[in-house]
């Protein structure tokens, strides 16, 4: 098991990249431990921590009861007590039960104590829809977390980021929330054997282009790249920006791109009203209003609890064809 972990197989999954990251952290820093529902014996609801219990034991791969507020608060307390807890909330849907602890303790204690305490906790959770899990299990609430001063919020969309963001987050003295989109766990690609820490404040241009800027993050990145591919076939060169960090937002990278392309479409799986996409658009027009040649647009989820039936779920979420249409409209080809 330990050997497999350090082995740079040519193609691995996003899940495996996360697992390697956990493995590396647990191996190198005795203060690090993982806690959450079914992270141990079960191997993680999304199988991310498979095998770690056997290697690191039940004190450091700590199965918790179904007590989200209790164990997330405990992770915050353990961080205050000098450890580097990684707490897995099985999915964002259950994180509401722990939101009080995250907002009123993790994010707040440093400022409220006049800077006496830092809270170096890392909170990982699965997010998003697409697996027909219906209304209570398909939320995308990244923007709620990105609203909270005192937190950092990350959305790894690539294997490099899945492998590297956690590593960097563990060096950060403040609470970091990491969103892992459920549709990414099985994505495969190559990952360098020596992949490790990545910086976690800057957006990345995943595809350069001159005609329009597409801003997205997390599980919507593959859909956006797909759309960009389709657009290219029609002669529209879209630049695709992966936000990577949802708080702080890398505004300069967005503004720079939009100043070149003069058009922007934001793709975000959150419900449209109150989405992170809205925030991005607001920032762009506040900052670069005169650089824009067309009204900005968003492709978000429809304002409906996500339904179970596949065709309805698909219709509720951003999809490549909707992105293509939105871009064409912004290009005046609508």
């Amino acid at each position, binding site marked *: 098991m330990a050997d497999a972990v350090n082995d740079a197989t040519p193609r691995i999954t996003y899940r495996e990249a996360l697992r390697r990251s956990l493995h590396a952290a647990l191996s190198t820093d005795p203060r690090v431990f993982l806690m959450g*529902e*079914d992270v*141990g*014996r*079960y*191997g993680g*609801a999304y199988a991310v921590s498979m095998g770690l219990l056997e290697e690191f034991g039940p004190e450091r791969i700590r*199965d*918790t*009861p*179904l*007590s*989200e*507020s*209790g164990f997330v608060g405990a992770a915050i307390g353990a961080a205050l007590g000098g450890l580097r807890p990684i707490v897995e909330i099985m999915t964002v*849907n*259950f994180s509401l*039960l722990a939101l009080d602890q995250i907002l009123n303790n993790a994010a707040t204690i440093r400022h409220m104590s006049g800077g006496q305490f830092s809270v170096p906790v890392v909170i990982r959770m699965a997010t998003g829809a697409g*697996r*027909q*899990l*219906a*209304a*209570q*299990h398909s939320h995308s609430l990244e923007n709620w977390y990105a609203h909270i001063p005192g937190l950092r919020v990350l959305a790894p969309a690539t294997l490099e980021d899945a492998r590297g963001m956690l590593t960097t987050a563990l060096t950060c003295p403040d609470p970091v929330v990491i969103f892992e989109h459920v549709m990414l766990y099985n994505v495969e690609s190559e990952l360098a054997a020596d992949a490790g820490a990545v910086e976690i404040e800057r957006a990345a241009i995943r595809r350069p282009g001159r005609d329009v800027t597409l801003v997205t993050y997390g599980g919507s990145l593959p859909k956006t790249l797909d759309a960009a591919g389709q657009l290219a076939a029609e002669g529209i060169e879209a630049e695709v920006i992966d936000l990577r960090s949802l708080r702080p937002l890398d505004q300069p990278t967005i503004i720079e791109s939009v100043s070149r392309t003069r058009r922007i479409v934001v793709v975000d799986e959150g419900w449209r009203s109150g989405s992170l996409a809205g925030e991005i658009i607001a920032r762009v027009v506040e900052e670069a209003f005169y650089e824009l040649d067309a009204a900005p647009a968003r492709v978000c989820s*429809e*304002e*409906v*609890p996500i*339904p*179970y*039936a*596949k*065709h*309805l779920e698909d*219709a*509720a979420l951003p999809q490549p064809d909707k992105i293509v249409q939105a871009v064409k409209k912004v290009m005046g080809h609508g």
Partner: protein
Amino acid sequence: MTAPAAPPDRDQALQLLHGMLRIRRFEERCAELYGQTKIRGFLHLYIGEEAIAVGVMRALTPDDAVVATYREHGHALARGIPMTAVMAEMYGKASGCSRGRGGSMHLFDAGLHFYGGNAIVAGGLPLAIGLALADKLQNRPRVTACFFGEGAVAEGEFHESMNLAALWKLPVLFLCENNLYAMGTALERSEAQTEVQEKARAYGMPGIAIDGMDVTMVDSSAQQAVAEVRAGGGPQLLELRTYRFRAHSMFDAERYRDKAEVEAWKRKGPLVRFIDRGKREHWFDDGDIAQIERTVSEEIQAAVDFAETSEWEPVAELTRDVYTPWPTP
């Protein structure tokens, strides 16, 4: 403390057997359909636990309310939601009992006072409190039956709901289906005090543990508890000791328990036991069983046919039922 289980007469025995077999075969078919990708999303099978839903539902009147979890096919069927509507829901069809919106985890039926299918662990408990409060404030002699797994006991909502029910003396029957595991987490790794019924005492509430594999015992205990709750005696907790024979969901590799443990429990299963006893006590014979199997199999096939031939909800209807039609004044 448990009520003595009065032996069922032949009719009752056949009903109990039919009720359990119907759920068992339905779910076996669902597992196949999942393999064929007709059913998707999460599918949590109740196989092994059928005695509980069947036993408890018999104690309720049509006016009583039921609140269940994501593992609720058995409850939905035993309560009387037509199998056609349940199967169509699993297919995601417009003719499903939740119009294809809910799927396996969110079966609803307003007419039967079946308030779902809740997929947030312990999330249904506060609803049950409110339903019972509404009954109490409106002087309706109803009982709310609230099902949840033993894993839910660790949630704050369990604590808050138990206290509210006891404090306000509400007509709620809490039914803790203790199948020893919450996904891969064994009860002794989630609770400092593993005697679930002991928890009831912290709220001054009566609580007893029942063999949830014995449908006659579940039946009689539920009858007694429902009667007491309905009579205004305040809430009660029944812990039903059971076991889930299948994986938690279709994604579970079951690394947390031994095959041998599962096999041992299967030998104590509600159907084997009831069939053994029923034959021994001559409530029914193999011919009766075969007859029931045929009826059930026909019902299931009809449900599958119904689901297969039902229409999909038009995509244009996606956002219907987010809000109730209502004229702003």
